[in-house]
């Protein structure tokens, strides 16, 4: 398992981190805990780079500055950094660059012509030639593309067909702050990406704290989140520019983060609100954000202390609703008026369940619409601002981890996105189609990916569902903060400072709730 761990490379863009003060910078480095920091070429700034060198005791490689070639080996993985692709050609055979698992070069990016639908990879020639002399196929990382970009190019260079796997590393541009990406690079050229918004470190990690407020806090002697957590609301309010509700919000989030616990902001009943309703915690697994199939549904009943799942180990596009059917018919048989609780269900789980019920299980449509109550704990807590959650982001796994839930074994090694990827490839492989280049690439990818370990997948889903139950319990048992006077108004818009979810689509609360009958909680 340790072989799988790989090296962590944190990629930064100077304009994304220029605003971070030293505390925040250190906080970010602590959070990501990288083995190596890479500063992309775009908007490179020597002052920022030198701050990074002071703050981080591992290697900091900057793509700005004079072009050269440099190798770094961390956690057993070798990275070659090339300021210019042409420098990679004609290296001596015994050079250490020849055995690298990764080549990092910002020259590598697609050139595009949308009118002609043509795209080629800039820098492919030097890379191809380098590869032909090196041992093995290095994965190319580039700061010219955002993290998450993952494509295997197959150009023809010098008359030969070559394979160049390219991954992006640059921060993700969002409507708010950019998201910094940390890439876990393993021995086999596989990369896993985790990211966090650049403005969520140091004091900025607190709710309602933007650059101005952070400055004000610092001026008034609050350098760290812990300091803010320990002070009173009145003290915060006394700072110019911080009003009553802001002071409350800041303090709640500081305590939540510092003490790793949920902080209740209102006394609204935690969903499901009705006395007699017992929650059923639900999570679904699909083949991606725009799913064509739901292949695994996990359900936990805390009253019966029973976990049940419905899985399709032979998923097929001919019967994409098979699992949904099993789930809904079981639900209807066991529960007259169940209350389902999800994490971000309105944007994901319910959206897809409804689609498949409408089309593939229409006989249960009325039951679903009239007798099943659907709740979304994330929506209740985060969007409607009834609770502040610990964890750097509001993703379920981050919140659960902050609350002390531990994942181990098979469930720890998986993540939703890669699982979805594997299911997609499984579905593709059932169709042996013509030899288009994209099919070949898919086949190549499928062959390098592993087959699906169904037991592990089921464990993963169960872990998700149980974590959801644990978070729900933590919220329900968290005492109401004595400092807050009365309840906040519900139904507010998305927190502007709130971190985004991995599975969340950006939307306003126009996204309709689907429960019928029960009043708004």
């Amino acid at each position, binding site marked *: 398992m340790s072989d799988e761990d790989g090296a962590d490379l944190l990629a930064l863009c100077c304009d994304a981190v220029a605003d971070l003060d030293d505390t925040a910078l250190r906080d970010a480095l602590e959070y990501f805990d990288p083995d190596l920091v890479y500063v992309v070429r775009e908007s490179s700034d020597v002052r920022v780079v030198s701050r990074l060198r002071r703050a981080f005791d591992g290697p900091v490689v900057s793509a700005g500055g004079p072009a050269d070639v440099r190798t770094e080996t961390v956690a057993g993985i070798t990275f070659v950094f090339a300021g210019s692709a042409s420098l990679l050609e004609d290296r001596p055979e015994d050079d250490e660059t020849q055995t690298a698992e990764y080549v990092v070069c910002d020259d590598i990016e*697609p050139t*595009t*012509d*949308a*009118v*002609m*639908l*043509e*795209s080629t*990879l800039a820098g492919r020639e030097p890379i191809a030639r380098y590869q032909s002399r090196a041992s093995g196929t290095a994965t190319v990382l580039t700061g010219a*593309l*955002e993290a*998450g*970009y*993952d*494509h295997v*190019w197959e150009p023809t260079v010098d008359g030969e067909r070559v394979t160049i796997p390219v991954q*992006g590393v640059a921060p993700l541009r969002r409507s708010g702050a950019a998201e910094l990406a940390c890439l876990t690079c393993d021995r086999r050229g596989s990369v896993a990406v985790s990211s966090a918004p650049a403005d969520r470190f140091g004091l900025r990690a607190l709710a309602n704290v933007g650059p101005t407020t952070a400055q004000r806090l610092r001026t008034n002697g609050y350098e760290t989140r812990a300091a803010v957590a320990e002070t009173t609301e009145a003290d915060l309010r006394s700072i110019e520019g911080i009003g009553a509700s802001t002071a409350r919000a800041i303090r709640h989030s500081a305590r939540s983060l510092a003490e790793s616990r949920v902080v209740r902001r209102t006394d609204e009943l935690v969903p499901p609100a009705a006395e007699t309703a017992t929650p059923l915690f639900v999570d679904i697994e699909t*083949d*991606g*954000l*725009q799913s*064509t199939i739901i292949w695994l549904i996990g359900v936990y009943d805390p009253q019966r202390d029973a976990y049940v799942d419905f899985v399709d180990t032979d998923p097929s596009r001919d019967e994409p609703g098979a699992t949904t059917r099993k789930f809904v018919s079981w639900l209807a048989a066991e529960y007259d008026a169940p209350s389902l609780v999800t994490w971000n269900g309105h944007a994901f789980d319910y*959206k*897809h369940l*409804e*689609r498949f019920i*409408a*089309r593939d299980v229409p006989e249960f449509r009325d039951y679903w619409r009239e007798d099943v109550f659907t709740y979304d704990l994330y929506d209740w807590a985060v969007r409607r601002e009834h609770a502040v959650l610990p964890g750097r982001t509001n993703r379920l796994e981050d919140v659960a981890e902050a609350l002390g839930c531990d994942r181990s074994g098979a469930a720890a090694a998986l993540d939703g996105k890669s699982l979805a990827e594997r299911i*997609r*490839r499984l*579905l*593709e492989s059932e*169709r042996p*189609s013509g030899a*288009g*280049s*994209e*099919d070949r*690439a*898919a086949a190549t990818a499928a062959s390098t990916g592993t087959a699906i370990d169904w037991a592990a997948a089921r464990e993963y889903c169960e872990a998700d569902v149980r974590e959801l139950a644990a978070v729900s319990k933590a919220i329900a048992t968290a005492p109401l903060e004595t400092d807050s006077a009365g309840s906040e108004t519900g139904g507010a818009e998305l927190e502007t400072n709130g971190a*985004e979810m991995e599975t*969340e*689509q*950006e939307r306003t609360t*126009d996204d*309709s709730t689907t429960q019928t009958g029960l009043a708004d909680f």
Partner: protein
Amino acid sequence: MPTDDIDDLTDGQDSTGADGLALTGAELRDTFPSRRYHGQLHERFTLPAEPASHVPAREVLPADLAATLEVDPWSHQAEALEALSDGENVCVATSTSSGKTYVYGLHVARRFRENPDVRALLVYPTKALSRDQERELNDLFDSLGLDVTVGVYDGDTKREEKARIREEANVVITNFAGLNQYLEGHHRWAAFHAECELIVIDEAHSWTGISGMHAAWILRRTRRLIDWYGGDPQYVLTTATIGNPAEHARALTGEPATVIDEDGSPSGRRHLAFWDPPTDGGGGEYEDGSGDTEWSPSKRPATVEAPEVWAHCCYHGVPSLLFCDSRKQTELAVGRAREYLENPTLPYRNSADLAAYNAGHGKRSRRSTENRLKDGELDGVATTSALEVGIDVGGIDGTILMGYPGSRQSFWQRLGRSGRDEREALSVFVPSHATLDQYILRHPEYLLEEEPESAVVDLANNPVYLQHLRCAAQELPLRREDADRFGGIDRLERAVEYGRRTGDFEGSLAGGVTYAHRDRPQSEINLYASSGNAFEVRLAGEETFDNQAIGKARAYRDYHEGATVLYRGDQYEVVELQEDRPQPSVTLEPVDVDYYTQSQRRTTIYDTEVRESRDVGPFRLNWGYGTVTVHHDTYTKREIGTGDVLAVGLETGVPPLEMRTQLCWAEVPDAVEQAVTAAHSDYHNDECEELPPRLHGYLGGIHAIEHAMIAVAPLELTVDAADLGGLATNRLPDGTDASGWFIYDAVEGGLGFSRRIYEEYEAVARRARDLMTDCPCGRDEGCPACLMDDRCGNDNRPLYAPAATDVIDALLGEVDPAALRSSANADPDDSTERRPPASVS
């Protein structure tokens, strides 16, 4: 003969009765004050009345439904209903006020009786029209005693209403911009999609060019989702008369449609007069512009003449609408009309009750004007296109058009506002000095006899295709089965591979291609721009302005700093064009000035790729792709109404814009070039110092052809001449030695217009020739009405009509190049002289 004013004066209040039209075209002339009449009445036409043609209701509808109908349907409505019950798609291409709503209204009604869960999607051009339709349909269903629910679902719909409409409404009315957004949440429309039996696209002719492309792809995405949920709807398109309704219906929906164009609705006799404003100072000659390149027409502007004609009609008992281009014009027109009637030297005793009507007036004010019109309290209303469609305006007997509205469809639409049912009506067309107006004045057959313009929707534009593929992939993963609907398997595969390389797509067609990012690609779609880089339009001091972004090409062309623009009928000046930010924008400030601006462009074209070619006469004609660099570096200020130049050579400050687009070009054969050059080698334009003197004539010729062909293109196609560009050159960029001229689509990826021009080249060239020879200016160098293009980057020189007509004659095979040559002085050194390249745009 104009009658003597004093004796034959008729009191304005003396109407000839409720049924009669107070003035025919001849009577208009005869009653016009003699001191103001200088032969303006150019032509008169009488269009005969058309009787109604009914079909008994029970022949097309189930008996009990037919019984509740108050009036039998007209023949075209009946035909459409029959085609629908046969399972066909239908394209109803009849005149306005021919009851097209009833076609789909009745179809929904009869389907409802079989299946109360039936759903229909109606796509309307605007939110205002949507609500009018809602009322009209509710009235219809009420009168039929049916419980069909209708709901408007768009940006103005209240949040609480939205869920109810999605779940319950049988008929949902929306618009394309809204539809584009709502597709993203298609799971909420599951029930609607599953039962959807009808999709109606209203005013389908208006979806052409860029907006037509977007509409076509949005419809395909919609249909794909409806199919996924199990629905299988038919299409009904309603359109004004266009030259190619079947083709257009197919381009928009992807499916064939039965065209219903025999109009069974009645219309009364119509008198149509062409009223040409006189020259200023009465009966004078045109200014001689020899030696100078500026030529100003000294005719009375239509903006002055038309309100007077209108006033006269209203005064004489012909309640009339005056159609103006802008809100300001409507207010000015009312002022001028009143002044005219109050002029003591003219024989008008009383005034007339006149009002202006435009979108700038509040809702209450507009309702009040509409009601006063209906009740006969107003004699006349000056309006913008706001009154071109929609509400019933009661007893209007006359329509005066101040200038040509730009298309035949619009022209007839406006005329049709007078004379409802079988009433006799009068319409007067007062042309402005613009090219098209003058052309139509001299070629009325264009309006009365010829085929209307063809709508053009070009699905070949790849940047737009990609935008919609991204949306489609986000809505549901793209699969092989989608290829038929989305460009065919080859194009789809190429686009998917392109998207995978650029990081927009993940997966393969076998397993499903999904959109790789977390944003909503639907928000990138702007119905009036071709791809990203849209500029937001802002009002100084405020946020955005109606959310209507404009494309980059248009921003550079019309929204540079210092430009004046008309936005919703009001005048603004562009005070800032900002490109450095992630969201580029232009900022406007309201102004009230008496000039308008127009930018000139300099064009270069290279890297051409021939996709198709054919021979036209001895010429080679090509169509394909090329890289066009357009630089709108200067602009002029011109006086509104007269077009007089107030300032020239002002700097826009915008950089050149490079785009890859579709174009067509003609290669002139050597023999023709040499012959024409020789025949006109004596012509010199002193201001063209940079060109070799003996080439002025020939280059002036091909330059003139390029201008003229673009100017007349709107007569054939539903194109805005601003969306086309051209370049005439002594040496084509593809390496041949030939000279020729280009016409290109001024939008990245192309619009399909240059393609159409390529296909109809001979017809367009012929019209261009007519434009040159018929113009009354009689100048070899042309005038703004024929050859001069306000946007010409070369200051409209050299332009030389005699050479142009020779070249066109050769193109059309009507003259032998040898004949041309022999009429010139033979120069033995011709063939040995090396021609330097020279391009004129």
